[in-house]
């Protein structure tokens, strides 16, 4: 009988890399990826690297000032409609 709770192998875990990091896996699959990462240094390193990449992209959100001119343009258009 297949063990549906066992850790995935490297190939399977890597295929689910982004789904795992984006929180899109169901509980059982997420648990099996997590167990694999506890056991595999290489895959754990890959996942940490990609997580740091996503964290880095999120820093762009802090730069709201960059949208100031766009906001002004949109506001101008909205006022023109009213």
């Amino acid at each position: 009988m297949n063990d549906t709770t066992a850790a995935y192998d490297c190939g399977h875990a890597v295929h689910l890399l982004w789904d795992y990091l984006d929180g899109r896996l169901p509980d059982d699959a997420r648990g099996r990826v997590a167990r694999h990462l506890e056991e595999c240094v290489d895959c754990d390193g890959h996942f940490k690297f990609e997580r740091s990449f996503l964290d880095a992209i999120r820093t762009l959100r802090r730069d709201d000032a960059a949208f100031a001119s766009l906001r002004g343009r949109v506001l101008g258009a909205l006022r023109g409609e009213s």
Partner: protein
Amino acid sequence: MTRHQSLPPDDSPRGSSFDDSGIAYAMPTQPPTDAALSRFEREALPSLPDVARFARSLTRDAADADDLVQETFLRAFRAWHTFIPGSDCRRWLFTICRNIFLRARERESRMVNVDDAEAESLAAVRLHIQARDAGLNDMFTRLDVAPAIERALATLPESFREVVRLVDVEGFAYEEAAEALGVPVGTVRSRLYRARRLLQAELLKYAVDLGFAASSDRDVVPQKEHGK
């Protein structure tokens, strides 16, 4: 195109309607007649060279463009009874041509979604191995990361850039991004994964250009070992 013209049906269910251009069409209710064919040859076929040039600009492939032109005229003829004499036939044909092209492209993107997503996960891991081997395992914390990512984002095609902005920067769920962009969730997923890989490749190149990869061993943060 004027309001009173109708677009011909494609592969939509019988009796349904769509309005890609904000115009509803009526399903044909009668077969074309010989007289209709004569009128079609006289009024529509002279536009074929124009439609063919337009199709070539869309597909960028001569064979695909020819197929597209043929399909355009076939569908136009099937719906010829809905065409209003005296209105702009060439514009009507261009609209049909563009709609067929866009729908075919959408079908293709849906078909390759799953394979693309898996391939992109593997590609991301390969890219990490390259970075690690170059001593750049920690490049996302060593770079002045926001300006570097902005620069890298600017190099991506618009369709990739917008999905990164919505999902990774603004925190949209895939489903929310799909709704905002008017594309299937699978398309958001595949575009996002591809965009992330392209972004990382640009950032790796940027880090190497800045000389980070040439740092001496003591400047590189050692890779953390787990379970050993």
